[in-house]
């Protein structure tokens, strides 16, 4: 469309060639811009943080009194726990909702309203989900007479799952929509029931797209600090969570605490090292998801 609009006065062969080339240059520049900024930031991070990175850094608790000994073990374990719980909650809920909405739900006003809400919820700021979590687990606190549940990993995971569910549902729906109509019709024509059609034809071909939604959702959740602080995640603790009902901290909270300290070693070196670890964890999660996605794709072909 952009071609026909911008290219219409240029009907000569040369004009079209110039347009073609400049369009390519613009697109390359757009990619390069992001890439160069990323490289600059990564280089800065590695310069500041590389010296502090060690196995010891990963397995030690944070320390105010001995900055050189300070590590990120509790926050790292908190992040891994949280991501695991989020996955357990998000995958069945997100994919289940998407399948229901795409495959089973009648197209009426009610489902349209649900659809509209899901799309809008994807853009709600994370702190609002934090407040929602506080309110929801406030009721739980009244029922149980203790605030422990609200401050637990489980509460954090439920709140974060709510936050990323719209993203996961929308992406999964898109993936389901992309399954060609003739695949469905073909399998039905061969005598498959609806469930057989969905489970053997539709879901396998939609898995790669669903995985993309989950990757994006997790990437958003892993960097959040504000909603968790609102809920009652802890800034300083020296132990890793013993279970889903324990207190916890996560890497972004640890990074935030260090980055605002006056001491250079915390402000620059330790926080940069923690950011590198955070990116490492994110890459690991994503690499695992991408591996599964390509395995799923291979099975398809």
């Amino acid at each position: 469309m952009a071609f026909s609009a911008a290219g219409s006065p240029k009907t000569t062969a040369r004009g079209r060639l110039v347009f073609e080339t400049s369009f390519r240059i613009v697109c390359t520049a757009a990619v390069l811009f992001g890439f160069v900024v990323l490289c600059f930031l990564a280089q800065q991070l590695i310069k500041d943080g590389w010296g502090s990175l060690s196995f010891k850094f990963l397995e030690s608790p944070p320390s105010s009194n001995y900055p050189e000994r300070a590590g990120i073990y509790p926050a790292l374990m908190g992040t891994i726990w949280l991501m695991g719980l989020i996955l357990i909650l998000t995958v069945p809920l997100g994919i289940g909702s998407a399948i229901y909405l795409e495959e089973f739900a009648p197209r009426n006003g009610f489902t349209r309203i649900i659809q509209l809400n899901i799309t809008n919820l994807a853009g709600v700021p994370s702190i609002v989900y934090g407040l929602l979590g506080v309110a929801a687990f406030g009721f739980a606190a009244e029922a149980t007479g203790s605030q422990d549940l609200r401050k637990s990993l489980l509460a954090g995971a439920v709140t974060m799952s709510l936050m990323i569910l719209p993203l996961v549902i929308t992406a999964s729906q898109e993936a389901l929509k992309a399954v060609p109509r003739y695949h469905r019709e073909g399998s039905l024509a061969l005598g498959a029931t609806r469930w057989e059609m969905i489970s053997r034809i539709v879901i396998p071909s939609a898995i790669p797209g669903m995985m993309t939604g989950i990757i994006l959702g997790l990437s958003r959740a892993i960097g959040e600090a504000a909603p968790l602080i609102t809920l009652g995640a802890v800034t300083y603790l020296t132990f890793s969570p013993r279970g889903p009902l324990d207190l916890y901290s996560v890497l972004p909270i640890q990074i935030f605490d260090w980055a605002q300290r006056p001491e250079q070693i915390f402000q620059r070196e330790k926080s940069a090292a923690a950011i590198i670890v955070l990116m490492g964890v994110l890459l690991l999660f994503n690499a695992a998801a991408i591996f599964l996605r390509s395995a799923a794709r291979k099975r398809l072909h």
Partner: protein
Amino acid sequence: MMGAGGSVLKKRSMMLFCAWAAIAAVGCGGRGGGRAGGSDLSGTIEIDGSSTVSPISQSVAEEFMAQNPGVRVVVSTSGTGGGMKKFTAGEVDICDASRPILTEELQKTKENGVEFIEVPIAFDGLSVVVSKQNDWADHLTVQELKKIWEPGSTVKSWADVRSGFPAEPIALFGADQASGTFDYFTEAVNGKKGSIRPDYSPSADDNVLVKGVAGTKGGLGFFGLAYYEANMDKLNLVAIDNGKGPVKPTPETISDGSYSPLSRPLFIYVSKKAADRPEVQAFVKFYLSKEGVDLIANKAKYVALTPALYDMSLKRFESRKLGSVFNGKETIGMRLEDLLKDEG
């Protein structure tokens, strides 16, 4: 089986040794009140509140946990206001506070039936700083500060502050509204909490303020003394004249009250319910012991109270003195000694 039993025994005796070492160390410190307790203590102590006080609590908690491995101390930083909200609802054991409890918050504690003990733990000096290239402003009077920072201020360059200063444009940096530091500075300098000229550069991150002032020839900013001390090579400290000659913030001038009005006491508020638990008692006593004070001054780099004040703090805690001596007011111009002495 034998092996496992043996290692448990070994652990036990190690723990006993640690406890003994802890008691011995505190005992040698010479302050009877600072007994850290044995390692048979257990439980979780939850602290929330000011990000200014948090490094102190973290530092003390770290050492306390090394001596009492059965106790878990966790520190959160939702700010003094955020911490008070949880504290007055009875959700946390201790609240870190960079200002006294407010009237509204006192009201909340009454509604929720939360009783508490107010324990002053250290002083914090607010430093007023300029860039290294600024060789003219080595001191400012409180009136000059007010002239610069008050709402509707017409000060555009240093020449407007005092005749004789160069016509270098002035650039202002300071804490943003969410911070207890902002509340304190505006009240102390402009006379009303929250009143400030709107065209300064605010940030919640003191390190951003440091960069701003250091990088601007006519820059002027305020933040906690610890941030000046970590950046002495980039900043010049301004002495403050409150009618008795210019005074620079140092541990001495802050703790004896002569660096006025920009020094403030920091507190922990301990809920009475928590104070009945042995591990919380041991923790607060450790906080106020010689060892704790050493951590406050040398590791967290805040200004320690005088020994007499720590004794008063400890007495308040031990006798479970409930309520706040400030009655919801700010601490500017008040001397902690007088306030605490008054109550006997």
